[in-house]
């Protein structure tokens, strides 16, 4: 009985008229948790009832507390007939279960009905008294913090990054139960909403347990998704990165630096001590993992360099030993790996060295190998036990294994920026996973403080060979050893992680344009955010590749085969498009790459979005050269040369637009002589060699300077035309799908988050080309509309532009975009860019506290990475043996992989450097505080609603997040049978999205927050039946509720104003 949930119903307002005769309502409230229900008295004849109820108390297990939502139902009392439901409120009480999050839920929450939408508001108070339960066999995981944010949350520091956690739960979809035939749509929708709430709770609890088992206390980059499989069930799955986080206690960032000198003792010990009782160390299997947890801490205590390295060495030797043979040892791997796997089976969740993070503390990310992805087509009607998660677990396992082996083949032991997704059409399901192969630093674990010391004194780092061996265990190549020397200024993380002579794919290597010492590829694709310390020339921009492919209508296996056959071509073309567009903009790297493949009855849709930038460390991209096939024809020649001219003009224009003017010549002179010819010849060789799968997706196409496009048929001509039709962003606008835009720092406080949805009806019988054009225009026009809508914010940047495409039914394409527009101050842009170099050393120091507290638990990586990669082509097929269903293909797109080398100058341009704009905030002191409107229960009380900001970014410009209040994860269904009356499909969806926003804001405000960060709309499933005047929509949103304070306010308030600032309600100001 470890928890007592208390709820109090205070009042209602704006209730709908339920009694036509009196134009009033006799409302009462049912409060339900689990199987217990309480009722308030009926408040007769009022649209603004004042129940002011007693405290309803529920004594429940904390397991239930995690799984169940508090369900509040507002009803209209009717003496003679059944009481009419007005609507419901589901309250996720998870944030109250964590001591560091919210303490009370209090405020006006919209009363929601799946048919009528929001029908008034209810004021409630919810509290939880939690009794500590140290039972090691407990099923609950209260206290584990969840963050949607894919970076270390702003007011925490990472002590340890444990690794990948995943979980999946399955249930029958209420919409497909037999009972659905006889119950009302409302009952069915509510059953669904409730079920998903329960499943999310259960999922979160289970993931929490895994985290506790790993010794962590938080999940960062928590990504939860729904798969509406239809008949076979409803799947809720989630992935995340387990971490041990510690709250940064000192309030202003500047206050932390005095402690820099010896933070290991000051900060780590207490945390560890505190954690020890909470984590039942003895309960876990006595694996080397535990031992290592200890060893990672001991050096910091002993403060001895020697002992630290030897310690780790000891604990790691049994695991990494076999890998040390370097690339040659790869073949010997599998057997040992198998053995290894058996012993590690208890630690299944650590099997995957995956990280859902996209932003890393400085120095964590050593190298980036390139994008790895895998897809697999499955048939849902072939699941043996649809109610059990095993089959889906096995599916994902295959994919993850594949991803892992791809990463390995790139010489990387980890995958960062990892995400998973599905696309379902009838019984066909495409599972996709992608990430960025990378090498992460492990030294933070043992040598953190020393490392930082060195950083501070600006000395080159000594070589810790032990560390490097451990990390690059199974590669052990000269390159990997080599970069250790350079790591010091941060330049090291971009060197190629794979062996130069043994490149897994054809790539063009040159010496880094920053340090001139190590090899970098010519182009780099990644799924992560642009590292803050990366040096970038000019600005970035959104780059999208869009593709449609028709396919024949088919059933079952035939259909699945057709889809799997199409997939590689789709991916190949997407990559070609991306590459062309990248070159066209004169850029050489993509960040935040997200490739979405959507399947419909008669077509496949592919949308790749990424942010292109020019990395200073990478070579300047060559132009695009068009080569015709029939050189004899003069007019044709002319046509070609015209096109060539157009392309060249575009490149020049783009370079100007994005301010890409690398100091190429100067660099060339300064740099050491590069053995260019040798490079090239070797490259050609590797190009010609490639004959398997991989070569298809080889995008480097050989020659360096001119990227050759051969025009051999009309398709190619179309492609080039398409290339040139991408209209440039209007003046004053920038766009990216990453968190930050390089080259812009001085954000103002003006932010505008928005969601835009469009559905297009296609004509039948379109060709691939026609479809492509339509789809491309659809995306382009959508962007244009966004620019137009947001024109008042100019100069501004659309950040985190997240496109999702779907094929809701035949001949319909749905595109949904969620993004945020951030205004910036133009005047300062130029100056800042120039000054940042001088300014940042100070910042680099302040950041060190973060760096040195950062640890990585790498056993998972090292152990699992010992499974040696087989031939790439093999990987695709081997999992099918295990899969219970027909496995038609799992496609490694393992497209393109590059690494980059970045020059880390003395400065690190952090996102945090928006601090410089704090002075501007004063101009617009918005009512950020939250109004606790308990007393103001009359509708004319004049208290306005507290402003809640929403943003898909993990931060708020010009403000500091001082508290995370918990995760917001909401699922809503809206249905109507009077579509026309509600303004048609657009009116219906417009209202629904606005309602979802309103409910998110209200719940955040009730938690005491004033913003949602890392907000995303994960699902927007829209179905319509205009003939029946009906429509239905499902929306799933998530984010982190936070309290932020403006930096300008921060300077005024003294230290520790956490509760004070938030409680001073200036919400009334808004009147």
């Amino acid at each position, binding site marked *: 009985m470890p928890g007592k949930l208390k709820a109090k119903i205070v009042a209602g*307002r*704006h209730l709908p008229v339920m009694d036509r005769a009196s134009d009033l309502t006799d409302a009462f409230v049912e409060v339900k948790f689990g199987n217990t229900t309480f009722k308030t008295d009926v408040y007769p004849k009022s649209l603004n009832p004042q129940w002011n109820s007693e405290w309803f108390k529920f004594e429940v297990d904390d397991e239930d507390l995690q799984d169940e939502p508090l369900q509040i139902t507002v009803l209209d009392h009717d003496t003679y007939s059944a009481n009419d439901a007005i609507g419901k409120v589901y309250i996720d009480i998870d944030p109250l279960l964590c001591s560091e999050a919210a303490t009370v839920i209090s405020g*006006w929450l*919209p009363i929601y009905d799946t048919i009528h939408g*929001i029908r008034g*508001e209810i004021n409630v108070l919810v509290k939880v008294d939690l009794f500590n339960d140290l039972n090691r066999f407990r099923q609950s995981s209260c206290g584990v913090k969840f963050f949607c944010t894919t970076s270390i949350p702003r007011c925490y520091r990472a002590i340890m990054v444990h690794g990948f956690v995943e979980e999946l739960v399955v249930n029958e979809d209420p919409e497909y139960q037999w009972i659905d035939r006889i119950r009302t749509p409302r009952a069915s929708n509510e059953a669904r909403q409730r079920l998903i709430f329960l499943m999310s709770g259960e999922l979160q609890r289970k993931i929490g347990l895994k985290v506790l088992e790993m010794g962590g206390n938080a999940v960062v980059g928590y990504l939860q998704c729904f798969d509406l499989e239809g008949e076979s069930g409803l799947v809720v799955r989630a992935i995340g990165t387990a971490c041990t986080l510690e709250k940064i206690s000192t309030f202003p960032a500047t206050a932390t630096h005095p402690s820099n000198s010896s933070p290991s003792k000051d900060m780590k010990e207490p945390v560890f001590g505190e954690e020890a009782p909470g984590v039942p160390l003895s309960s876990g299997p006595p694996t080397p993992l535990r031992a290592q947890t200890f060893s990672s801490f001991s050096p910091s205590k002993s403060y001895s360099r020697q002992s630290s390295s030897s310690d780790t060495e000891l604990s790691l030797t049994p695991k990494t030993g076999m890998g040390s043979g370097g690339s040659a040892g790869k073949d010997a791997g599998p057997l040992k790996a198998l053995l290894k796997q058996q012993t590690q089976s208890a630690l299944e969740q650590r099997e995957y060295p995956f990280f859902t993070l996209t932003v890393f503390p400085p120095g964590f990310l050593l190298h980036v190998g390139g994008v790895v992805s895998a897809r697999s087509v499955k048939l849902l009607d072939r699941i043996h036990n649809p109610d059990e998660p095993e089959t889906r677990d096995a599916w994902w396992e295959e994919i993850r294994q594949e991803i892992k082996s791809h990463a390995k083949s790139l010489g990387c032991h980890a995958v960062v920026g990892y995400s998973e997704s599905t696309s379902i059409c009838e019984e066909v399901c495409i599972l996709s996973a992608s990430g960025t192969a990378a090498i992460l630093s492990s030294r933070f674990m043992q040598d953190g403080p020393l490392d930082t010391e060195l950083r501070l004194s600006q000395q080159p780092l000594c070589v810790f060979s032990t560390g490097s061996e451990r990390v690059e265990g199974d590669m052990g190549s000269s390159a990997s050893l080599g970069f250790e020397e350079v790591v010091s200024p941060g330049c090291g993380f971009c060197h190629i992680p794979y062996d130069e002579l043994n490149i897994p794919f054809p790539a063009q290597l040159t010496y880094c344009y920053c340090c001139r010492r190590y090899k970098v590829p010519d182009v780099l694709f990644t799924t992560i955010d642009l590292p803050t310390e990366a040096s970038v020339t000019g600005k970035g921009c959104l780059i999208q590749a869009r593709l449609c492919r028709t396919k024949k209508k088919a059933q079952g296996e035939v259909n699945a085969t057709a889809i799997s056959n199409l997939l590689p071509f789709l991916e190949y073309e997407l990559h070609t498009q991306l590459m062309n567009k990248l070159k066209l903009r004169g850029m050489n790297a993509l960040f935040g790459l997200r490739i979405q493949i959507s399947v419909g009855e008669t077509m496949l849709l592919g949308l790749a979005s990424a942010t292109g930038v020019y990395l200073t460390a990478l070579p300047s991209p060559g132009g695009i050269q068009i080569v015709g096939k029939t050189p004899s024809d003069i007019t044709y020649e002319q046509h070609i040369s015209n096109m060539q001219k157009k392309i060249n003009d575009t490149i020049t224009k783009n370079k100007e637009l994005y301010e890409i003017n690398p100091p190429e010549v100067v660099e060339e002179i300064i740099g050491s002589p590069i053995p260019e010819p040798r490079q090239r010849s070797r490259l050609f060789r590797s190009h010609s060699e490639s004959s398997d799968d991989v070569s298809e997706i080889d995008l480097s196409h050989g020659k360096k300077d001119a990227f050759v496009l051969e025009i051999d048929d009309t398709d190619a001509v179309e492609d080039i035309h398409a290339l040139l039709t991408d209209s440039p962003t*209007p*003046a004053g606008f920038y766009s990216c799908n990453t968190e930050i835009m390089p080259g812009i720092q001085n954000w103002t406080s003006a932010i*505008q*988050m*928005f*969601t*835009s*949805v*469009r*559905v*297009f*009806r*296609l004509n039948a019988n379109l060709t691939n080309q026609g479809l492509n054009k*339509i789809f491309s225009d659809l995306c382009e*026009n959508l962007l*244009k*509309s*966004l*620019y*137009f*809508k*947001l*024109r008042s914010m100019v100069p501004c940047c659309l950040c985190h532009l997240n496109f999702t495409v779907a094929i809701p039914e035949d001949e*319909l394409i749905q595109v949904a975009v969620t993004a945020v527009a951030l205004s910036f101050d133009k005047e300062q842009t130029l100056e800042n860019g120039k000054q940042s170099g001088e300014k940042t050393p100070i910042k680099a120091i302040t950041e060190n506290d973060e760096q040195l507290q950062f640890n990585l638990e790498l056993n998972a990586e090292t152990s699992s990475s010992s499974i040696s990669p087989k031939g790439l082509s093999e990987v695709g097929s081997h999992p099918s043996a295990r899969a219970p269903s027909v496995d038609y293909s799992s496609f490694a797109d393992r497209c393109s992989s590059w690494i980059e080398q970045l020059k880390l100058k003395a400065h690190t341009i952090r996102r945090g450097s928006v601090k410089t704009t704090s002075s501007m905030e004063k101009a617009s002191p*918005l009512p950020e505080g939250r109004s606790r409107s308990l007393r103001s229960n009359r*509708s*004319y*009380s*004049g*208290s*306005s*609603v507290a*402003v*809640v*900001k*929403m943003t898909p970014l993990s931060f708020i410009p010009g403000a500091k997040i001082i508290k995370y209040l918990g995760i917001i994860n909401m699922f809503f269904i809206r249905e109507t049978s009077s579509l026309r009356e509600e*303004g048609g*499909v*657009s*009116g219906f*969806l*417009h*209202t629904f*999205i*606005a*309602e979802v*926003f*309103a*409910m998110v*804001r*209200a719940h955040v405000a009730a938690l005491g927050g004033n913003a949602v960060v890392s907000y995303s709309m994960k699902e927007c499933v*829209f179905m319509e039946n205009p003939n029946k005047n009906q429509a239905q929509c499902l929306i799933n949103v998530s984010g982190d509720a936070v309290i932020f304070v403006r930096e300008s306010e921060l300077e005024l308030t003294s230290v520790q104003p956490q509760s004070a600032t938030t409680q001073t309600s200036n919400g009334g100001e*808004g*009147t």
Partner: protein
Amino acid sequence: MSVELDVFVGNTTIMDKEVYQLWLNGYTVNDAVKVRIEGGVMEECEASAEVLLSDTMDQYRTFQMCERLLHHPAKLANQLLFQIPPDRQAMLIERYYAFDDLFVREVLGKKLSKGTKKDLDDVSTKTGITLKSCRRQFDNFKRVFKVVEELKGPLVENIRQHFLLPDQLARDYAAIVFFANNRFETGKKKLQYLTFQDFAFCAGQLINNWTLGAVDNMMEDMDVDLDKEFLQDLKDLKILITDKDLLDQHKSLVCTALRGKTNVYNEMEANFKNLSRGLVNIAAKLINAKDVRDFFIDLVEKFIEPCRSDKWTSIDMNLYLTHYTNSAHILDTFKHHAVWTRYMGVIKSCILRLYHD
């Protein structure tokens, strides 16, 4: 290929003032797009007609969704559906409740009933204001009327508080409510030269001086009805015209005072009795609701028109009314000084306001 669905929802609701005005003016989406294109917004923002159409539709939808809230402006601040900054809220309300002077002249003083609403299409054709806009304005009048009808306390203040309107607009609405309640006739041809602001001014005078609230603002009765007691007392003023001596005395006093000071002295002298009878008769009849309706007609017919045909200037008028009012106090047998002052104060300022071309 066609766009089946197209929505844009911002966390902070985006509203374009220009489009809002077009919507308020009752333009259809297509007409609004045309106006916007002519306005040159496309060149400014490198947009296409398609983009403009999408934006306009979207905005229109937003406004339609907001309209429900605008009917109860206080709700706008308390609702959760749209996050609108306070200054935007104020703008939305102010513009929504703004009205066309042309339109208001058509319905001023009419009963705000369904019958009147049915005739709005005539008003629309006559004024050139779209029917949609006419309906909105009419419904606004009616809504405000219904709410304040039942309320105690000062009219203007009530309107301002319940509809969160700026002071001037609240005063205008008070005038509209006052006119509608007392059904003042304003549509007659002879009154056509008067603007809404002329009437609004008079309404302000009447509200401030002739209603119950004017005597005792702590009284809980309404500002919309005229003070019955006062109207009753006005009958006593009849003595000024029925008593021959008094009338003559009054005339001589005024003539003495004005002699040499005005160019229209002769006309004034000749007309004095008629004019005075006119004004006093108006006062005496006000006790009948029907005659209240004709108040402005009477003022114009009985006083303003004769003076105008005699080519009085405003200065003449002012001079005359001042002395006319003051002289009455000197009459020995005239006892109703308070009522006279209260009556003539309003009459004088009204006439001065209404006396123009």
